[in-house]
């Protein structure tokens, strides 16, 4: 193990080479956003003049300050300014697109011409469409997404927080941190189209992630990770410390694994495993793109029970608990809350404007979605779920292959544990799980009362699932 961390702070250091004033970051970004908006409108006109039937221009920009810690030492201080234009043109029912980070009128005009050239060589598709401002009115901003003070968080302030978090995470000397990163990012993204749609949004976010393992003498655990975020500086310290403790607990728990016995039957999925093995399949078969291509098994199942009645899944694009919140989707349609599955019944297919037109329905504003999902808790204690079988595997992560179409999955149960008579008997190694989503989806027997956030985009209870093959090493 390396020496203990010594974190110092040079007084007076700010994020940039010049003295920074409160509001500088936001002002700089707003100026960039304004310039890009002006350019975007010029490009909309240019595209139509050049023969496009419709054109969409996306702009984005960010100012990010980031620190990286490797082996308990700050290894890099990083500051980045980024901008991007993305262009989509439709001409004669064909499409072409272009992206560039060169924010100059002549480069972006060239991008329009490249996109038009690609469209001319493409294949006609009558379903191509863009919304107009009558169906995509200006979205209402979410106040919690932006904080001027947070935008001005300096590298020195980040460094101070990281020092505290690192001390917390490595209190147990068996915790080996490969990489610990923290960043503050102020960003905007905007979307304009030639049919009058104009959306924009500004946000600040402080994010962090830990990646590492447990090392105890010659014993090395598998890698594990944890991450979190906050919208405001004031909320950061407490959440960061929670993540540091959670990460340390995970990697030390993974040490000294044992082999599991093979069986087929009940396992418990942690919230991380639920995200990897359940919601991925559910969203694929509910997606408008799978439905329009005839790949979904749930083509005609809206309103019908498709998974266990234990499952109620919501999308909440305006909930501050989720990092992916947004006020408008990739088509420029204002986002809104949805119940996607209600007590096992499929409530809707997830359509953007394109898949909706192909399926002769209307968009439910899901281009790029869902944006922040929560699976409803159940009525059982996790401890009771872990007593459901004399020997039961608690699957925490899944590393393997999934076939979305067939529903098959097969891979290694990572960071997973064996419970015997309800008691934790340690981490497992070389343990593989396999099964089929359509077989187990109706055999989800219970959900826990307890829930946990996964990576800022999903919250879920633990689930008791039947029909899983466990192959011990």
């Amino acid at each position, binding site marked *: 193990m390396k020496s203990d961390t010594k974190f110092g702070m040079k007084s007076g250091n700010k994020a*940039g080479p010049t003295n920074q004033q409160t509001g500088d970051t936001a002002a700089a970004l707003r100026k960039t956003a304004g310039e890009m908006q002006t350019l975007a409108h010029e490009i909309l006109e240019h595209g139509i003049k050049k023969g496009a039937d419709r054109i969409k221009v996306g702009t984005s920009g960010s100012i990010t300050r980031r620190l990286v810690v490797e082996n308990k030492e700050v290894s890099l201080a990083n500051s980045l300014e980024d901008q991007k234009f993305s262009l989509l043109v439709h001409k004669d029912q064909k499409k072409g697109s272009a992206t560039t*980070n*060169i924010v100059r009128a002549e480069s972006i005009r060239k991008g329009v011409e490249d996109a038009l050239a690609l469209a001319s060589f493409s294949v006609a598709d009558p379903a191509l469409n863009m919304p107009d401002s009558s169906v995509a009115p200006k979205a209402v901003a979410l106040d919690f997404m932006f904080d001027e003070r947070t935008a001005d968080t300096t590298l020195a302030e980040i460094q101070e927080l990281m020092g505290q978090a690192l001390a917390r995470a490595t209190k147990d000397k068996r915790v080996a941190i*490969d990489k610990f990163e923290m960043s503050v990012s102020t960003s905007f993204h905007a979307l304009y189209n030639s049919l009058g749609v104009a959306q924009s949004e500004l946000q600040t976010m402080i994010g962090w992630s830990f990646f590492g*393992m447990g090392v105890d003498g010659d014993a090395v655990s598998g890698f594990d990770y944890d991450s979190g975020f906050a919208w405001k500086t004031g909320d950061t310290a407490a959440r960061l410390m929670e993540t540091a403790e959670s990460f340390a607990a995970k990697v030390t728990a993974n040490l000294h694994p044992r082999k599991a016995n*093979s069986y087929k039957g009940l396992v418990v999925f942690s919230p991380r495993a639920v995200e990897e093995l359940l919601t991925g399949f559910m969203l694929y078969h509910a997606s408008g793109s799978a439905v329009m291509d005839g790949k979904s098994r749930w083509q005609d199942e809206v309103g019908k029970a498709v998974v266990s009645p234990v499952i109620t899944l919501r999308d909440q694009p305006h909930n501050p608990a989720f990092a992916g919140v947004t006020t408008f989707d990739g088509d420029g349609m204002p986002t809104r809350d949805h119940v996607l599955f209600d007590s096992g019944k499929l409530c809707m297919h997830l359509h953007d404007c394109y898949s909706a037109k192909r399926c002769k329905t209307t968009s439910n504003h899901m281009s790029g979605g869902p944006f922040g999902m929560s699976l409803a808790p159940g009525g059982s204690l996790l401890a009771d779920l872990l007593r459901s079988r004399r020997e039961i595997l608690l699957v925490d992560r899944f590393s393997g292959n999934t076939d979305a179409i067939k529903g098959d999955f097969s891979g*290694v149960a990572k960071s997973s544990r064996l419970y015997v008579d309800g008691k934790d008997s340690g981490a497992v190694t*070389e343990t*593989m799980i396999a099964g089929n989503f359509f077989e187990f989806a109706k055999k989800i027997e219970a959900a826990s009362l307890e829930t946990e956030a996964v990576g800022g985009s999903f919250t879920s209870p633990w689930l008791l699932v039947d029909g899983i*093959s466990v192959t011990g090493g």
Partner: protein
Amino acid sequence: MKEMLKKLVAQNSAQDNSYIELRYHKRQSNSFMAQRGRVDVANHSLVEGVGVRAMIDGAWGFAATARVDETSILRAIEQARHNALTIVAGRGKKVAHLQKGKMAVVDWTGPGFAELLAMPIADKLGAVINFERQLAKSSKALHTARCRYNELLEEKIIVTSDGAAASARIALPEFSMSAIAEKDGERATSSRGAGVSGGWTCLYNHPALDNMVEETARTAVDLLSAKHPEGGKKTVILAPAVVGLLCHEAIGHTVEADFVKTGSVAQGKIGTSVASKLVTMADTGCETIAGYAVGNIPFDDEGVETETTTIIKDGVLVSYLHNRESAAEFGVAPTGNARAWLFNDEPLIRMRNTFLQPGTSKLTDMISEIDDGYLVEGAGSGQADSNGEFMFGTGYVWQIKDGKKTELLREATLSGIAFDVLQTVDAVSSEFRWDLGTGYCGKGQPAKVDAGGPYIRCKMNVGGRQG
């Protein structure tokens, strides 16, 4: 551009003897995807900028600018220096020095760059549309045919304050096709793909694309009636793509010096036996076996000339993979493994082309010596862990019974502890192929890498169903 970068480096490193590294990167890419008779993706992208690393008093600062004029680059240099100064007081252990390697002073244009740059975009998109149509028509059992083409045209200039001043232009095209077959509600998927460092002709001459339309369709249809393999520890023959995945995921990541420092399973194992004596494994930035491997780069993103780094020689671990900082710490020469995905990414220790050296056995003999096992073809995705535990998916497997390749079986997941599995290798074929050219390695940033090897025979866990 190179002269401007040289001038800026000279001006800004002299003042306090700091290290300055400027990296200009321009990437043009074209991406096309056709499926079910329509074009889903037809995109052109252009990105450029300059990344700046500064090391002052043993601390790194990084900044980047997408504006490539002198004023903007100067501002980025000032920002990177400021960032280094911000953290220098907080570092307990400073970077002592950067190990000097063979610093590149070259202007290099890779094969196929001019060909791809000059080729009309209509021809490239047209080929994708035509291949998709051919595949769709090749069998009535196909529900979906899909083709993708992606090309990266990379232009890089690297100038460092300790001697590197080099430029490179590299063309990286890749093509893949996949088919979904359907019968009585049952579905099966098959795919083929290849990527090269080269031009259009080189890409379509890749052996993985031989008879690609017929092979892709036939495999998807055959897999409709295929069974799942039986789970458990099995004798397996791994095809070159799967060997490449094993080399990359299971061994390569554990010998990246940053992971070694954290405590990967390879830590402290230099000079010890980690594999069967039949195993010699290397990572190279300048392969000459076929000449088209995707990870061919004349110098890395610290300006160090690349060469072939032998990792395991006759079963003994002999080297880790290094950047200049880790090489100094380990007291060895840098291996040219510092790579950054874009100008605004800092260089990390990454693989290039990772492979097992071919041996002397013949595949047919290797099969004939197995009573009960599998021939594993078609690599899927894979992941490895710090403790050497790996997992990777395969496209499909062939049952081997009584010395004969018999039944086609559905995809399987393979896992094991890397060094344990390599100790079980008892045959290595003379046949060799690079076969992961469509792959991207993920380690915070993507990286274009390749991997391959001969066929090898070993024992490992095959994931399957329990009764």
